[in-house]
């Protein structure tokens, strides 16, 4: 063999590694940022980090192309052309902040509700909401209302926690993992890691999704369900499991409200004088408080009192779900799954939950004081996301799923679904919504929260909605995350009132983050008789030249995620694991090379200039010099601040004094903090005394909060009763029937609203979107590497539809909904529900945005389905504006959409085609050879 070349197999990797938190999506993994000559050279996952344990997805590794993206904004901008033109002049920060103050100060002094502050994909909601609360406007929320509030709210009302940030499957013990409506994200790396783990063990995955991609592609069983029917499918599984008695009776009796008595007259739960829920004790045969020591709650308890017979929640469930309405044969056609397959899945759930059960030798003590020598596994775990959530029947569907988990006894047990601190947390100890406005003063409390009856709604004295998005109103009483998708539409319509200034952060509302994109653009640019914009002023903060930038009057340019401080707080959207509480920071691993500032630091400045109570010292000077200052020094409650780690002298966790060196300690520790849950506290958390005590010491609770899972959600019954005419606070007449039907305290299924509103013959197909694994909303397109993976988004049609319409790959089709039409390229996909079409979310771009060439494929062939989806349901002829949202939570019903397809000759590009925006940042370079360092 001849000479072989020398290869340097040990080159220097980098000058330095700085550890921070990713922000390429909402997953918040730990990353090692390698620097050479002060520039970002390479990004990899942090092995020590609780979220990703070293791995990193495509987005995360492509972060290097995000911090060098040509779309980055460079300086504050003031609009000089008409709205939507993209014509701006660069101004100084002093001028920008003075201008903002000149708009906001009069609003605050006269009527703070005239400011609507909505913060999109914000990861600092506990801070931005604090700012809004101090400003005094009731109009604040982030993007949960158009994302997955159904999932979050159904989980919290039912079991004090939900999926993703609230909990996770017990990856190490589960033997059957069932996913519903989970696309490629939410959450990203942990699900992939979990799937890898259970596949390595040979455990099974059942994927329920009309589209077989990603996680559903690797699932052992694919259930290509009809969109919007998951609730009916789940209730049929419940029917089967009840019928064969494969339910965990002990678990139901001990840990849920199944044995609680329902007042036969009111439908409310029965309580003793102290307000404790009542169960019949099987030993005593009399009603006793549920939490009494030694009580044996009777699932079939019957109480005769005052001539009435009161039964249990479980009794009501048995009567409802044993009905043949839910038999597999009865639902099969609608859900698109053969009856025998529904039964097979029910049998598999029962087999794994009960026949593959095992025990862990771990003693624990429950809240009644009973000591258990073992922890019993029910190794079936479930996960669901937007696919079941983003429907107008989504809340009830998510509820049904949790009820299924609970009937099998698989929540908070080995092998099942586990909460992550600070969850479990019963709905009752969450804040309630606040909306009392006082000119020149803060709001009377937090904006968002959990209502427990009509008395908690955010209504004005005249009964009209107090909030611009009508959250917590009769239209959607339990709207825990607000309704960001209704803000612009309602503000434009002056329904419930007009506003002066719309202030938004990280929300691409004139493009992929709105329903009815063209309509929203018109609302943002329309003027009234006096020649003023109907929405008079718009302030927007973004790091990048997104489509929304062109529609604002003042732009406050944000930094990229590697140039800023952030805190991933337990007060906010946590990153904990089932076995540990955790939080994390971002810090400027590189300095910005542009005249930009972190948005949160700008709010600290703006808050002081506006003299907001929480942002000034007693002498009126600025309280927090920047966001880092706030992160370290803000006190939410005594001893509790944004970060739980390294408090006091640096050794205190959870509760403790301010530690001026806290951020340094985080940086030394790799950018995060972890505190493990004690061994005996790992399962049964809502009822486990050891967990409850640990949660108190960590500051997650103020006192132990054991509670029962709510199979029956009593607050819903209270809204129903109001609709039946009980109580002082009464819904408007036009909503009575809907509230009575849809706010059922036990899960129900009803067809998605669009199905009832349109002619199914005319619009025979369902249309969906999914977010790809390698893109997060619109952000990926500006990324030179990621756009090579997803630069195009054909509309995928099932083989049957391709044949029926004479289509082949690359042909074009006109897609029509009740609201509008688009013309788009199509491609065939066989692994797809035969009545469903779909495309990737947010690939289509407006010409001129994101520093892309105007002929970029994202702008010429890419498209949005958003043009087909209205924020309102089709008019009913009653003159009312009915939101295209879930009637319980207000969740945007993106996936109710129905369409028809027709083949058309190839156009010049996808339709609708909008005029190009003028780019405030120019265009990117044509060639990249990105190598830093020498």
């Amino acid at each position, binding site marked *: 063999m001849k000479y072989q070349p020398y290869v340097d197999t040990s080159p220097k990797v980098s000058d330095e590694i700085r550890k921070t938190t990713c922000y390429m999506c909402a997953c918040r993994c730990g990353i090692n940022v390698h620097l050479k000559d002060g520039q970002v050279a390479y990004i990899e996952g942090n092995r020590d980090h609780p979220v990703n344990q070293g791995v990193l997805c495509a987005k995360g590794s492509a972060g290097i192309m995000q911090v060098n993206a*040509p779309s980055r904004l460079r300086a504050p901008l003031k609009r000089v052309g008409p709205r939507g033109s993209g014509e701006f002049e660069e101004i100084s920060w002093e001028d920008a902040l003075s201008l903002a103050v000149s708009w906001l100060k009069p609003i605050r002094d006269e009527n703070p509700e005239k400011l609507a502050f909505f913060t999109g994909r914000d990861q600092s909601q506990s801070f931005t909401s604090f700012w809004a609360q101090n400003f005094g406007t009731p109009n604040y929320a982030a993007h949960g209302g158009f994302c997955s509030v159904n999932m979050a709210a159904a989980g919290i009302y039912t079991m004090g926690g939900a999926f993703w940030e609230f909990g996770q499957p017990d990856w190490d013990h589960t033997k059957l993992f069932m996913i519903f409506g989970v696309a490629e994200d939410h959450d990203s790396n942990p699900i992939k890691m979990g799937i890898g783990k259970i596949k*390595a063990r040979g455990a099974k995955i059942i994927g329920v999704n009309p589209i077989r991609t990603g996680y559903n592609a690797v699932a052992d069983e694919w259930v290509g369900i009809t969109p919007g029917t998951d609730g009916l499918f789940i209730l049929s599984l419940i029917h089967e499991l009840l019928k064969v008695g494969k339910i965990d009776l002990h678990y139901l009796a001990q840990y849920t409200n199944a044995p609680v008595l329902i007042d036969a007259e009111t439908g409310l739960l029965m309580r003793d004088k102290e307000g404790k829920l009542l169960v019949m004790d099987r030993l005593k045969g009399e009603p006793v408080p549920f939490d009494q020591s030694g009580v044996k709650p009777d699932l079939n308890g019957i109480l005769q009192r005052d001539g009435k017979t009161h039964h249990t929640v479980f009794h009501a469930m048995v009567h409802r779900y044993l009905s043949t309405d839910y038999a597999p044969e009865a639902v099969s056609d609608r859900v698109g799954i053969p009856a025998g397959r529904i039964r*097979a899945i029910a*049998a598999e759930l029962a087999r794994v939950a009960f026949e593959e059960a095992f025990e862990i030798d771990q003693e624990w003590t429950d809240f009644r004081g009973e000591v258990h020598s073992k922890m019993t596994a029910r190794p079936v775990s479930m996960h669901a996301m937007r696919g079941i959530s983003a429907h107008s029947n989504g809340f009830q569907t998510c509820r049904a799923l949790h009820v299924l988990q609970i009937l099998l006894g698989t929540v908070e047990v080995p092998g099942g679904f586990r909460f992550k601190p600070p969850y479990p947390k019963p709905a009752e100890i969450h804040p309630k919504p606040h909306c009392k406005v006082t000119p020149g003063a803060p709001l009377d409390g937090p904006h968002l929260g959990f209502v427990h009856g009509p008395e908690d709604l955010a209504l004005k004295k005249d009964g009209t909605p107090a909030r611009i998005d009508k959250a917590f109103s009769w239209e959607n009483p339990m709207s825990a995350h607000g309704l960001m998708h209704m803000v612009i539409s309602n503000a434009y319509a002056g329904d419930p009132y007009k506003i002066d200034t719309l202030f938004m952060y990280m929300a691409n509302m004139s493009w992929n983050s709105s329903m009815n994109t063209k309509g929203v653009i018109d609302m943002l640019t329309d003027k009234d008789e006096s020649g003023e914009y109907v929405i008079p002023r718009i302030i927007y903060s973004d790091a990048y030249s997104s489509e929304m930038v062109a529609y604002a009057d003042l732009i406050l340019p944000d930094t990229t995620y590697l140039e800023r401080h952030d805190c991933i707080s337990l007060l906010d959207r946590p990153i904990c694991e089932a076995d540990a509480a955790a939080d994390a920071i971002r810090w400027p691993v590189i300095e910005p090379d542009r005249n930009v500032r972190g948005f949160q630091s700008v709010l600290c400045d703006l808050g002081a200039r506006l003299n907001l109570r929480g942002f000034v010292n007693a002498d009126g000077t600025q309280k927090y010099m920047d966001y880092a200052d706030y992160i370290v020094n803000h006190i939410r409650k005594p001893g509790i601040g944004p970060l739980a780690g390294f408090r006091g002298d640096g050794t205190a966790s959870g509760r403790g004094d301010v530690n001026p060196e806290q951020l340094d300690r985080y940086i030394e520790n790799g950018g995060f903090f972890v505190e493990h849950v004690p061994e005996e506290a790992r399962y049964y958390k809502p009822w486990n005394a050891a967990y409850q005590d640990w949660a108190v010491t960590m500051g997650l609770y103020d006192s132990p909060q054991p509670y029962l899972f709510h199979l029956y959600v009593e607050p819903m019954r209270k809204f129903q009763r109001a609709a039946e005419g009980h109580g002082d606070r009464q819904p408007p007449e036009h909503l009575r029937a809907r509230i009575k039907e849809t706010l059922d305290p036990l899960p129900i299924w009803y067809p998605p609203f669009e199905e009832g509103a349109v002619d199914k013959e005319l619009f025979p197909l369902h249309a969906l979107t999914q977010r790809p*694994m390698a893109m997060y909303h619109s952000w990926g397109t500006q990324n*030179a590497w990621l756009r090579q993976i997803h630069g195009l988004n054909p509309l995928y049609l099932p083989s049957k539809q391709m044949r029926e319409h004479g289509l082949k790959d690359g042909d074009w089709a006109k897609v029509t909904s009740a609201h509008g039409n688009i013309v788009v390229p199509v491609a065939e996909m066989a692994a797809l529900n035969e009545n469903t079409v779909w495309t990737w979310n947010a690939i289509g771009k407006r010409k001129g945005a994101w*520093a892309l060439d105007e002929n970029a494929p994202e702008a010429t062939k890419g498209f949005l389905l958003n043009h087909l989806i209205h924020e309102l349901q089709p008019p009913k002829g009653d003159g009312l504006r009915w939101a295209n949202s879930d009637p319980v939570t207000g969740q945007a019903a993106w996936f109710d959409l129905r369409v028809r397809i027709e083949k058309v000759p190839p156009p010049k590009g996808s339709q609708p085609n909008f005029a190009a925006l003028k780019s405030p940042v120019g265009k990117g370079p044509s060639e990249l050879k990105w190598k830093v360092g020498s």
Partner: protein
Amino acid sequence: MTELPSRTNRKLGLVIDLDTCVGCHACVISCKGWNTENYGAPLSDQSAYGANPSGTFLNRVHSYEIMPESGGAAQLIHFPKSCLHCEDAPCVTVCPTGASYKRVDDGIVLVNENDCIGCGLCAWACPYGAREMDAAEGVMKKCTLCVDRIYNDNLPEEDRVPACVRTCPAGARHFGDFADPDSNVSRLSAERGGFDLMPEQGTKPVNKYLPPRPKDTMEEVDILAPLLTPIAEEPVGFMAWLDKTLEKI
């Protein structure tokens, strides 16, 4: 023409698990990032923000739909593809300058960029389409198996694996020595039926793919299935069963 070694001391390569790969492209971008910054010329991108974006990648994920022969629902397979470091590598023997070579020590197939004239013959010769000409540099790029990671003293020992393996969230990629029958990759391949890609080409690829496990095998069951014996058809009977059962708890 360039010679292949008659034997290599080790056969380093990858096992890629097609049952587990979810098609996330993490490996694609991690590879792009490491190899842009490291071995040889950066992996360039043309029309990076333009109408026809096209760049050099050493690893790509393709997706294929398959219709099972037995009928049943269509399946989607994610198929990551990079150089397979063949024992009988036609890309090496076709190279007119000796730039393409197979390392005697570990079997890695590399391109010595100093000697590469960018003629592209090796890309034509590779039946897998695993080589890409860098348009900016005019040299042939290919998977190096992260030769500058796996022996790198500047990396912690646990990180001395290819970037794609380190980053794979699902754990679908495994790195090791196929010359050692007891190595992790040899055992995994043996246990799970690891197969060669296009063996008929006679290239003797070192990398192995694990086949997807059988899918959609759950049989429909009727109401008489053993696990689904009804205890009651209606509520009254159910509550009677319940009372009886509760007595036993």
